[in-house]
Structures are given as structure tokens and as C-alpha cells.
């Protein structure tokens, strides 16, 4: 019955105008998206809602029962090791953040617990969100949904550029009770968009007309043509689509400016392209292109202190009291750690030496307090997490889920690696946070939600890994 009435409603509208209006198209799109996301949206069925308490109670009961079955059934369970790893990382991260932040919080806000309170709230919220997201079938993000995320991200990135700057950059949207970084959402959107594209165009991306064995023999000529054809085709299907999908995001991010996020998104996109079938020859060009882009941005003064940061990276001690302060203090903190560290809570460098020790340079405090042993342990935890993330992703036969999983995992991996390399002065300072450790409510919540997607991928996979 409902289908009929739905169709009839549609036809009515078409009839009225003779063709589909924009309004009907938008409505149609919204219904499709909402249905994908398991929301029961039906414009045609204009029945009266039952707001009686009994009905609401029944629907809540129904919903919770549904979710409980999701968590109880063995076949439907997500990957437990991954979950435990994440929880361990979050706990260790929060503890270290607490230790690292309290002196700075006291000096800035006269309240040692300032960051700790916030972080605990967001950790709880994030874990809850992670569990909720893990019940959503990852397929729901495929296709048009990913573009919705993409559009929203672009919109927010434009919005944030229009909003007044904070600390000299347009990076945060103030929500009153907290701030929100659209770039966090953008990362996820980029993963979704790339994964969707790859899922739908995997064959085209991986098509090869060129035959290896014929090269030397008769068909050399046609083979050379085929090589060029393959490359052109690969560019059209496996490079260009990514450029126009990701390009605007990168551009907007550079306008903020937010170089570290730009680099992370480039790396994620690159990874997904590589796995999706983009020919390796293009990566040289892409690398050169991004290199030119980044150095332009850095050396033309588009990014504040860009040149200084390069100089500091070359020799942090040249201006130890000025520009090199952050890096120098970070190095001193790391070195102070020794093999076993000063003990949890005993960092000295966090007392106003490391600027904002709860953020980008938190790993220096970790090193100082836990020593090489603790720091290596945390890095190994991350490594295991990355391996597990890759493993559950590959195990899933669904191509979209596979790519989304790899995207999310590699995002965390790259962020971790870049952050620690900045802290140890192996690469110039870009201002990148350490996943699970750095303070920052929305980024942590977003991160945990993404892990929720990863868990959902492990859940929906028929191939469970042990």
C-alpha cells in the first residue's frame, strides 16, 4: 500500500509541473539519504504520529533490544582486540594528557583540572558515540551519503573561513560549550568520498590493456599505444576524479591555514589511490605537485612562521630562547626521560617549558615521564592498532568497507607518525595533534566515531579474524 501511495504522490507532483521540480529532486535525495541511514522517512504517508507514552516506550524498547542483539550475537560482534586496543590507548592518552596539562592549566586558568575535566567528558561522549556508530552498517556511508559528508565539510570549511580568526587562524567554529574543527570532519568525508569513488570505479582504475609478453615480439607498436592509452585512461579514472574531489578541500584547508591537516588528507588520498589502482608513475608527479604546493605555501609566507619553522628544524638551538623554544624544550624533555623516565606525573618540562604540553607536544612529556620504555610501548600500541585496523579492513569482502577501514587506520597512523616526528624534530613543526593523547574535545570525539566506523566494518564482515 505504502509503495503505491508513495508512487502516486510522486506522480502527482510530476503531473502538476510537467517535469520534476528541484524541490521534488531535493526531497527525493533527502528521503534516499535518510532511508540509507535507517531513518524511517516517508513524506507520502501523512499519517498521524502516535505520541502516546506507550508507543514511545515500545519503540525505545524495540530500538534498545535491536542494539543489544547487535552486541550479544557472536557473529555480529565487532573485533574485540581492536576495541580493547582503542580503549587502552584512550585511557593511557587521557592519563598522560591529565599529567601533562595540569601545570599549564593552572598557569592559564588557575584551575589545574581545566583540560582534564573537558577531556573526560569528551572521552565518555566519544566512547558512547563509537559504540553507537559501530552499530550502523558501514554501507550506509556509501554513495550519496559520502557526498553529503563532503558537501557539509566544504560548507563548514567555507563557513569557518568567514568566521573571525582565533589565534590568528580560521580553524575553529565556536559552538559555545566547545569548539569544532571542520577539518576533522573533512578528513572523514575525504575517506568516504575516495572509498565511494574507488568502489564504483575499481575496475576502470585497474584495467590494463597492455600485455607484458607481447612487448618484445610483434605487437610492440600496438603495445606502446596501449601503454599510453592505459596511462591516459588511468589518469582519467584514477587521478583526475580525486583531484577535483579533494582539491577544493585542500584549497579551503590551506586558506584556514591548516597545513598539517592538508598534508594528512594528501597522504590518506594518496594511500587510497595507490590501493585503488592509480598507476605508480603518477605518484611522482603528484608528489612533485604537492611538494611545490607545500613549499610555495610555506615559503611565500602564506603559512605564518613557515620559513622560521624550517630554520628551526634545521637548527633548533640557533634561537633556543625565541623561535626554537618549542622544539628545544621538547628535545630537552625527551632527553630527560632516559630509559625509564621520571615517573608518571614527574615531568618538569611541562612546567611552562613545553608550550601547551597538553596538545601537540604531549609526546615529549610522555617521553620524559615514561622514558624510552614507555614511549616505545605506546608507539608499539599504535603499530599494533594499525596492523589490526588494516587486518579487519582487508578481511571485509566489501570493497567500500575495505577502503574506508584502510583510510581511517592510515589516518591515525600518519597522524601519530607525523606528530612524533615533529616532537623529535625529525620533520619541521606543522602543528599536528597526537591521536587519543592530545587534548581537544571534538577531534577526540570525531576520532572515536571514526573508530566506531572501523568497528562497524569489523562487525559487518563475515570473515572474522582471530
Amino acid at each position, binding site marked *: 500500500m505504502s509503495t503505491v501511495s508513495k508512487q502516486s504522490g510522486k506522480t502527482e507532483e510530476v503531473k502538476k509541473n510537467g517535469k520534476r521540480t528541484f524541490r521534488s529532486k531535493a526531497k527525493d535525495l533527502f528521503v534516499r539519504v535518510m532511508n540509507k541511514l535507517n531513518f524511517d522517512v516517508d513524506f507520502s504517508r501523512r499519517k498521524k504520529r502516535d505520541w502516546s507514552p506507550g508507543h514511545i516506550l515500545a519503540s525505545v524498547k524495540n530500538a534498545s533490544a535491536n542494539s543489544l542483539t547487535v552486541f550479544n550475537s557472536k557473529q555480529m560482534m565487532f573485533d574485540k582486540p581492536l576495541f580493547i586496543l582503542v580503549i587502552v590507548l584512550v585511557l593511557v592518552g587521557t592519563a598522560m594528557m591529565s599529567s601533562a596539562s595540569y*601545570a599549564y592549566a*593552572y*598557569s*592559564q*586558568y588557575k584551575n589545574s583540572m581545566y583540560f582534564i575535566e573537558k577531556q573526560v567528558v569528551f572521552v565518555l561522549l566519544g566512547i558512547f558515540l563509537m559504540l553507537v556508530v559501530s552499530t550502523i552498517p558501514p554501507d550506509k556511508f556509501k554513495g550519496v551519503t559520502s557526498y553529503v559528508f563532503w558537501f557539509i565539510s566544504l560548507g563548514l570549511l567555507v563557513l569557518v573561513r568567514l568566521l573571525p580568526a*582565533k*589565534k590568528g*587562524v580560521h580553524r575553529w567554529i*565556536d559552538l559555545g560549550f566547545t569548539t569544532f574543527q571542520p577539518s576533522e570532519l573533512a578528513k572523514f568525508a575525504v575517506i568516504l568520498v575516495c572509498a565511494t569513488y574507488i568502489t564504483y570505479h575499481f575496475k576502470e582504475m*585497474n584495467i590494463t590493456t597492455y600485455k607484458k609478453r607481447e612487448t618484445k615480439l610483434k605487437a610492440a607498436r600496438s603495445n606502446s599505444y596501449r601503454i599510453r592509452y592505459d596511462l591516459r585512461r588511468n589518469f582519467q579514472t584514477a587521478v583526475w576524479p580525486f583531484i577535483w574531489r579533494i582539491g577544493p578541500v585542500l584549497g579551503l584547508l590551506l586558506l584556514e591555514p591548516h597545513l598539517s591537516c592538508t598534508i594528512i588528507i594528501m597522504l590518506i588520498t594518496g*594511500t587510497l589511490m*595507490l*590501493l*585503488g*589502482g*592509480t598507476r605508480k608513475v603518477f605518484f611522482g608527479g603528484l608528489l612533485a605537485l604537492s611538494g611545490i604546493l607545500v613549499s610555495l605555501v610555506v615559503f611565500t609566507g602564506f603559512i605564518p*612562521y613557515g620559513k622560521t619553522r624550517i630554520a628551526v628544524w634545521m637548527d633548533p638551538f640557533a634561537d633556543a*630562547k*625565541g623561535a626554537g*623554544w*618549542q622544539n628545544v*624544550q621538547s*628535545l*630537552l624533555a*625527551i*632527553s*630527560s*626521560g*632516559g*630509559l625509564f623516565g621520571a615517573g608518571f606525573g614527574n615531568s*618538569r*618540562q611541562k*612546567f*611552562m*617549558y613545553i*608550550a*601547551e604540553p597538553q*596538545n601537540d607536544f604531549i609526546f615529549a612529556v610522555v*617521553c620524559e615521564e615514561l*622514558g*624510552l620504555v614507555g*614511549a*616505545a610501548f605506546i*608507539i*608499539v600500541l*599504535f*603499530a599494533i592498532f*594499525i*596492523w589490526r585496523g*588494516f587486518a579487519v579492513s*582487508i578481511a571485509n569482502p566489501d570493497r567500500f568497507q575495505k577502503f574506508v577501514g*584502510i583510510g581511517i587506520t*592510515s589516518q591515525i*597512523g600518519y597522524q601519530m*607518525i607525523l606528530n*612524533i*616526528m615533529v616532537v*623529535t624534530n*625529525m620533520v619541521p613543526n606543522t*602543528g599536528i595533534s597526537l591521536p587519543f593523547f592530545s587534548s581537544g574535545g571534538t577531534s577526540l570525539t570525531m576520532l572515536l566515531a571514526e573508530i566506531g566506523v572501523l568497528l562497524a566494518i569489523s562487525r559487518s564482515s563475515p570473515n572474522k579474524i582471530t
Partner: protein
Amino acid sequence: MINKALSFIKQSYQKFISMDRFSSGLAFISALILGCVVAIIVELANLMVINNDEYQQKAVSQQLRTTTIPADRGDILDAFGEKLVQSAAAWVVYLEPEKLTENYSTDEREEICHKLAEILDTEYNVVLQRSYMNASPVKITVKADNDQKNKLDAYIYRDAYTRNVTRENEKGEKYKEEEVYLADRIKNGDFPAIERREKDYYIDDEKLKHEEHYHYIKGVYFQTDTKRYYYHSTPLAANVLGYTNFDNEGAQGIEKYYDETLKGVDGKHLTAANSVGGEMQYEYNANVDPIRGNDITLTIDASIQATLEKYLRKAVIDNDVQNRAAGIIMNVNTGAILAMSTMPDYDPEDYNAIADERVAKRIAAIEDPDEKKKATVEAQQEQWRNKAVNDTYEPGSVFKPITMSSALEEGVTSLDDTFNCPGYHMVGKKKIRCGRRSGHGHETLTQGMMNSCNPVLMELGERLGIKTFSRYFASYGLTAATGIDLPGESAGLFHREAEMTQLDLAECAYGQSMTVTPIQMITAFSAVINGGYLVKPYIVEKVTDPNGNIIRSTQPVIRRQVISEETSAKMRDILEATANKGGTAHNVYLPGYRIGGKTGTSEKIAKQAAIHSKEDLYVASFCGIAPIDNPEVAVLIMLDEPKGKRHTGGSIAAPVVREIFSELLPHLGIDTTYSEEDRKYMDILVPNVVGESVEDATDALEKKGFTVRVLGDGEKVTAQTPVGAKSAPRSCTVIITTESKGEIPKTIVPDLLGRSPTQVAYAVRNSHLNIRYSGSGFENSSGISRTQDPPAGSEVEQGTVVTVEFTVDGIND
């Protein structure tokens, strides 16, 4: 192995290129991530464990601020627990020239320096000059006391202190905040007094500037320190105690030798500083309490020390001693030093100042600044020396008992032995003269010592021979330092046995051509008379910790017996005879006490030759022992280069020893026994006869043995001299007046100095005065008057007692 690895790599590569793009891409990405992780861990290991020293030190140096809390130095006490030196809190004031230049104009700087000089009681010019010194920080006073510190506090922190800090609120809006700290809080240490630097630092990308304002005098601050306080207004035992320098380190004397014992352990106030210079909150404060140093109790008796110094100082002035004088008082049986002094001494609280006025004048006259500086340094080094321990001299005749006791012990001579002194002694072909050129003629061994006859001693030396003499010399501890617990002890020079000639032996026998330190001399001398036991001298009785527990107490050490008890007894007799009538040491004679001693005068031939001195340079010395029948103390006085009328030990050093004995022996509670002759000159109490009838008065006085002379013809006595209820010599003529005569007539005291006893007695009698004999040599005509009291020319009543001190003159020893 290598082949296997190569083949594995080959296989992996084959596998890699045969993969589909997804798999190969994933492998590549995984390898990339793994590579990065390994690189990171390697870099971390490098930073944290392998090459972490440099950075770690940098971190520590920026984080920790250490303030030293100086430990109180231990006290130095005398044998009866009287404090000689004590430590108390003091403050060191520092200037930071750079800060002054940065913050103040020339006028302001001058004003600050002027104020500082005023408060700290120092020279304005010095403070100003220091304020321009190219160093930071500069000490401007060594030790300011609490009072000065409080004044300085009030001046420096007269205003409150504020700072403007740009902060950011939760929403990221910048705002300025002014923090105000009251001056009181700064003083109480809530904020460090040292000004903190202004610092720009970054919060994320934004550069925020912290402005700080200090409304107090910048570039001046102080730190706690301790200061030595000396308990006697005139420095007591300065050369023994030594002093502590700028850094509270013992630099001389006991302070130096027992520096480790006295200094204690400095405390530390460790604070971890954050980058803005404030102290880190929470548990980053650590206090290490200072541990007070241990107290040292000396064997020195402050009152004996004072006596020694009093008379030694007088002797130095009287005899115009050029090269300082030394004195030691020692317990002969234990080796405990009861007093030790070098004169002129210096003020340990102001140890750099040249205490000897004569030297100070000489230095002030030098114009060339370099020369002046050099001379000052030399004079300082000289005045800090403890002559009794650090310097050597030729002992001269004081050494003779050593030779004689060795000869007695070896049996090469005896008390019955007789000698003939023709005025010289032939050593090989060389003629060595005796002190008395005409010679002493026939004399016994004892007379040889009494006359201090060189030929007798040379004869004894010859009889002993080089080998035996050297053995005794070493046995008396004269070849090595005594081991007294004072820094820089020297040992004298003696001939090497193999190279020693008969001439050397002859000279050594009467104490020339070799050197010893005064402490070596007195130790050896003690061994001669105490039964032959060579003791180890010591000056520290015990060391006590701050709670009063004895950590260490010194036990007397007898190092060896050099001569037998019998020989020692013989030597005691000889030395007593020497100090009695007819002996060269007779000037040490003190009625009621049995004293022994030996004089000594040595010629500083080597120095005379070295400086081409036209006049002869001498060292006059004396070593006295009391009581000689049961020796307890030895006193050695050594006057280096006296320039007075007389220069022999018997005439200038022996009286000093007598004066010291006159106070020392009663202080030690040594019994007196007076001979008949002593009694003749002893004081007795004069009865008060004023108001009595003349007859009664005369009876009473004559009963006591006084001669009475009555003036006037009244019946009642109205006045008397010497006055009643006071003591006067038995031989006095008491003058009493009656009411008809009135007052006793006055008379002028004649000049009595430099006369023989007979002349003095005549002059005194002519002036209707009474005489009290003191010193020695007044019984026969050998004495000569040396001092008189009241002085010549003063107007006194007739019958007043004039004390005249005689010394035996013309002693050649």
C-alpha cells in the same frame, strides 16, 4: 646465510611485483609505516638513552635553582669551654652591574651606590667602582650583619612589585592581568628576590608578551652566609686560630687544619623553576638542611693565652723586635699547648689589614702601586704565619741542655767532671771563642751550664762524636716535624751525618749552624726535664658534635724515652742552678717558686751575610720550666731580631718568662715555698694604725718587723704610708704622722733606671721612699734596675713604696 637472505628478498620482491595493485599498495604502505615507526624508535633511543647527556644537563640547568644554605661553622672553645670563635648568621650583598646599567641612569646609580655604602658602612668609591665591574654578580660586602640586612631590605623593597601578564581566557580572547605582590611577600620568599627575566614565548602560533615591572631596586640582592665572631676585643691567639676567608673556608691555623671538622655540610634549597622563572607548584621543592660543623675544644687556656700575649706584646715593643716574636706555653708531661702566640699578631675579623703599624707605614710610603701590592701581599703572608710552628731559627744556647743531657746519658761526662775554659776552644785549627772572651777558667759541668760556656759544650760534643750526637739530635725529635695539629709545620735543618764536620759538630753542640722550630725546641727541652719522655705536642683537646657528644678526644702521646729518669733529674738540678743566683738564667727567678731555665742568644750569621747587615742580628730566646722539681709547664719565648740596648736572651727574654710565670704559676695553683732570703723581700700586710695612739701604732708596726718613723709629736696617728691594710715589703720604713704635723710631706720620685741596687737603695732612701725589689740580681751588685713604678718625676707622699725591677746585666749566654 647471506644467500638465504638474498633469496628471501628476491622472493619477496617477486611476490610484490606479481601482486595486484591493491595488495602491493598495502604492502608498500605497511612497510612505510613500519619503517617510520622503527625510525622513530631509533631516534627516541638516540635522544633518550644514547646521546642524552647534553640535553639532559641543559634541561636540569634550566629547571633547577639551587640556593645554598650555608652551614654554621663549629665553635672553637678554650680548655675550659670559653668560646674563642663562634659563627653567626650574616649576609652577603651582591650587585649586578649589568642590571644597574640596564635600569638606571648614572645619577640614579650613584644614588643607589651611595645609599648602599651608607647602609653597609663601606667606602662609596669602592661600591661605585664595583658597580662598574665587568662581572655579574659582584660581592659588595663580605658579611653584613642582621641589622644592616634589615636596613637594606627596607631600602630595596620599599615599593610593591607588580607585573602585567597578557593572558588568554578560555575563549581565546587576550586580556592583560596585573599581578601585584606586596613587598612583604617578596621578602618572605614567596617570590624570589632575584628579578626574573622578561620572556617572550609562544602560545601555539601567537606570540604573547609578558611584561613585568619591579618597583624595587634592581641589581641588588643578598644571600645568607655565616660570619665568624671573635670573643675577645683584642684578637686572642690569632695566629693559632687562623681565620676564615670570603668563602667561609678556614685559611690559616686551626680553622684551616680542622676545616673539614668545623665546616659542617651546607644545606640546599632546591627549587624547580618554570620557564617564566617562578617556582613550579606542587612537589618540586626539596630542602636539604644544613648540618652544623663540630665544635673544637683547644688545650689553650684563654687566660694563660692572654697572659702570654700581654707580656710578649710588651716585650716586642720594649725591645723593638724586628722580625716578630713567638711564645709557647706547654704542658711538659702531655704535650698539651696551653698558649701559643706570635707577636705582632693580626685581627682575624679584618685579616687583610696590616696589623703591625711599622710595616703598615712602610707600605704606605711605597709609591709604585705594583710594588705596594707586592709588599702588602708579602706583609699579609708574613703576619698570618704562626712563627712558633712555621718558622725555624738557630736555637743558640737554649739547645745546650740537649747536648749536655746526651753527654750525661752516654756517660761521657758526669756532674763531677771539671773543665777549663780559656775563652776559646780549638776545633782542629780553628779557634772558636766563648761568650766571655776572658774565659770562665776552671768550672764544673753545672757551672758550665750556669755560665752558658761554649767550650764546655764543644768539649761534650767532641766526646759524643758526630754519630752519637746526630742520633740524639734525631731522638729528641729535632729532625722531623713534631706532628702538632697546626698547618704548615716546618722541620729545621740539620747536617747530613755523612757530610758533618767536627766544626759543624762543635757549633751544633752550643746550638748554632742548625735550625729548629720553636715547637720542636720546647718539645725537646721538655723531654730533657720531664724524665726523658718525648711527647707529641697537640692543641686540640676534643671535638664535639653539635649535640655535645664527644667525637674525638686527643690522648697524650709519648713517642719515646730519649734519656733516663736519672739523667733527667741531673739536668733538672743543673737547670735550676742555672736559673738561680749566679746562673745566666737568673733573670727568671721568681720568689717562692723553683724554676729552671736556659737562656739563648744566637747570631743570625746567615741572614747577616745575605743582607750585608752592618749590625749584628740576634735571636734572643729563653726556655723556662716550673716547678723544676716536678715539672709541669715549659715556657719558650723567642724574640727575633731585637734592636734594643740589650739583645741577649738572659736579659730580655728571661724577664718576660718571669713575668709570665708570675701570673701563670698562681693560676695553675702551684705551691710556693719561700727561702729565708725570699722572705726578706716579701710583702707583708701593713696594719692600719690611723687613729691609734702613737705608742700602740709603733708597737704594732714593729711587731710586724717594720721600721717606724714618726713625724710630729701628737698623740694620735692621723696618716700613714704605706697605707694600712695593704701589703708592703718587710724592709719598709712606715711613716706615721700625728695631728700636730698634719699631712705627710710630698717628695719627687727620682730616676732610678739603669743603676745598680746599691745606687737605687741610696737614692730611694734619700727621697724618704720605700723600695720593693723585684726581678733578680738585687741581692748582689750584678743587677741593674730596669723598670720603676711610679715613674720618675711623679710627686708622691714620703714613704710610698717604689717598685724597682732589676735584671742581671751583662749576661753572655
